[in-house]
């Protein structure tokens, strides 16, 4: 279930996602991916995506999905793609 659009819709239209500390969100996402990596690549991607879906609030999800994904590690990036293809 893609969380991007519906999450963004809950926010007031004039919210700037650049106010969010994107670097911090990237750090968190990479950390999650790194810790799930040992389960094998496919499992890790799925688990990372599930984790973000289950535990991140809509603002955080909107920010990371709406921001530049290039600083992310491969598994994290793939997980975000599952949630909301770039």
């Amino acid at each position, binding site marked *: 279930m893609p*969380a991007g659009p519906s*999450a963004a819709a*809950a*926010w*007031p239209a004039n*919210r700037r996602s650049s*106010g*969010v*500390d994107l670097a*911090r969100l990237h750090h*968190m996402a990479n*950390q*999650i991916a*790194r*810790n799930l*990596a*040992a*389960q094998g690549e496919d499992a890790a991607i799925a688990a990372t995506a599930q*984790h973000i*879906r*289950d*535990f*991140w*609030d*809509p*603002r*955080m*999800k909107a920010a990371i999905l709406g921001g530049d994904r290039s600083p992310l590690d491969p598994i994290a990036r793939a997980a975000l793609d599952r949630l909301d293809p770039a």
Partner: protein
Amino acid sequence: MGYEPQADFGTPAVQSDQAVTLAIDGRSVTVPAGTSVMRAAAECGGSIPSLCATDSVKAFGSCRMCLVEIDGRKGTPASCTTPVEPGMVVHTQTARLQRLRRGVMELYISDHPLDCLTCSANNDCELQDTAAEVGLRDVRYGYAGANHLGLPTDDSNPYFDFDPSKCIACSRCVRACDEVQGTFALTIAGRGFASKVSAGQASDDFLSSECVSCGACVQACPTATLQEKAVKEIGKPERAVVTTCAYCGVGCTFRAEMRGEQLVRMVPWKDGKANRGHSCVKGRFAWGYANHRDRVLEPMIRESIEDPWRVVSWDEAFAYTAQRLNAIKAQHGARALGGITSSRCTNEETFLVQKLVRAGFGSNNVDTCARVCHSPTGYGLKTTFGTSAGTQDFDSVMQADVILVIGANPTDAHPVFASRMKRRLRQGAKLIVIDPRRIDLVRMPHVEAAHHLPLQPGTNVAVLTAMAHVIVTEELADEAFIRERCDWDEYQDWARFVADERHSPEVLEAVTRVPAADLRAAARLYATGGNGAIYYGLGVTEHSQGSSTVMAIANLAMATGNIGRPGVGVNPLRGQNNVQGSCDMGSFPHELAGYRHISDSATRGLFEQDWGVALDPEPGLRIPNMLDAALDGSFRALYIQGEDILQSDPNTHHVAAGLKAMELVIVHDLFLNETAGYAHVFLPGSTFLEKDGTFTNAERRIQRVRKVMEPANGLADWEVTQRLAQAMGQDWDYRHPAEIMAEIARLTPSFAEVSYDHLEEAGSLQWPVNAAAPEGSPVMHIDGFVRGNGRFVVTDYVPTDEKTGPRYPLLLTTGRILSQYNVGAQTRRTANTVWHEEDLLEIHPADAENRGIKTGDWVRLASRTGETTLRADVTDRVAPGVVYTTFHHPATQANVVTTDYSDWATNCPEYKVTAVQVMPSNGPTDWQESYASWAERSRRVAREPAE
């Protein structure tokens, strides 16, 4: 109901499969084999006079009051040390026994003060009782003989006095300190007539000795020799109400012994299933904070945090707060509001706070202090077993054969449970300690760890993986258990992973610094030593791999079949008195009560229907993310109940900045704590003595909190939350916490059969309490895991990002101490300040010497995040390269130094690993000084000038 002392059967209860029937004074009585004649008499309603016997400690046989006559045996044996035999015929009242008892009594009274009427133990003294029982009328020896009446009183301990002139040398205090508490601080000095109780060396008084002020000796003392000072001041209690302690996750139950509305003393309840009649200094004595002058009793508000506080009425406070909240919600949306529930307040109160946030504010932005302590437990155990809680009860430790303590310091943080653990260790169970520090448990009187693995902070997963490697490669796994209870293929994947050579103890030694031979031996011991039980604490969870460590622990337990019966299990030592409950009640932003994800529409629907409101289906913000969101302007209002995030959360600067950025901070607490410095509304809270409710301890045991006095601030905390909700337009109408519990039970399957009536009848209940387990669940996962199969999760060691280097070459880890509790909000406002007046930095002699530091010197503790100053304590309890401090005093600002790094799964802060440098200093840092003066300014309360 008047004041009834607790029943005492004389000698401890005995378990046995065999029953023995005997005759006592013509009455037939049947008891388990091994029971003493004294206890058998007590259980059938008779009573034999005694003074040195009490059922919390083994029989001693010294007072010689309890003599009986037994057919076929010569002499007059002591009934306390005589076990029952089948067919025994006992006579407890004969002419000879009467003479002997009176004779012994005469001797006692010939060396005892005679002014009972003005003694603090008047009518609460076993010596008095026994003299009355034996009918003593004349002390023929007179009173001019040798005596001990001139000995001075030792009043060094802040809570109780020791008056040796009243001592009858029964040794109950010594035995209680030995057998119940396990500290062995007391002894009898001298011999013969000169025998007297001593707290240590001849130069020691109670305060300077090893006494930990647990109160076991005071409780055991039959006379006024060891007596609470409060009884001397106030008088004998007139009634007792059983309630639960508000300090740690052991959840001791006490009798609050009252005189009117005044609490005289807290006496451990012998029927308490968590503490079984024992206590620690905090629950037993440190309840004076309820009356401390720092306690704020009236609501206060202010527009800006630069202004002084303005005292207002409750009505005005609620109206103001509700109006501001509604305004912010209207302008910025429901997700701009949030709340933090308290892990000290009751289940009912916590439930209402999360309900206020979800139903009233309209978001899931609710979190709790478990975020910073045991949230990884919730995640890790849910993932592997299916339940976010420990698997056993405390009694289970008495059947453990191998006890593995990792990242916990129970003798300081869970002392009453630690005493039981020590009892089991003294019986012969083996101990493994995994901790960077040489905690007391490693070697203390009559306890010695078979293995202490002093690992590098941050390498828990590596150590546990290495242990798993040993278990798998040496074929010590319990295959039958795994096949039956877990997924075999999943196990094999995991086994293959840990068996890899790179996970061997030898290879990982470079990272863990644990000698491979020790680690192998420890792993073998856990796997093959019998019932293996793991106990862990914040040294596991407060790491960047906290959740992984919990899962690694679960893996070890499953791999060795150590789940599903008494004596084994995975046991998180929950910190706060109700942190378990707070999590149970749905305080996490992603879960509703009972650990059901907010996205699950069936669960959400249940709540929506009951509450009559639609709920946000998206997970909300965790505390660190609330602070982040505050800084970027999207989170603007916070209602905090019973939590001081400025002192307890990491990276103080970040917390301060986040709070400052918010428009409305509501602090609901007993005191103007550090967080209140940034608050706009202060709602005075109530203590555990002033409300009804329930707490849930680390055993999942729900216990009653009972009101013994009216709230000094006027409202119980649940009433405050309700009034605030009502002011916001909610139609809540709870008249008693029992109604709130009824709602919880309605909406939460694991609480389905919990009710106040049921709790009254059962004393306490361990959830799940439902149709499948109507009387609760002491041990979990007996026939199968709650999630079905136990899940083996592969946990790779991922080093923390927090690295030492030339600038910050040492690793700081933190912890707690016995006499102070967490941020010290309660304990610093009691006489416990006589111990641990300040936080000290423990530093190894090698590191200290390199820096020219001696014990007592001021040192600067600096990290990438910040710096602070405190005094040093040079000790080899820490390894070279590791330093340690506590966080009980706000002046220390220990969290200025800790980082933003946190557990990958739950954001539980990595308090336990901070790269630091330590160097000599002249005194407090600029931050400490400016903070101190700012804090003082922010506590000003404007007073109306007198008319």
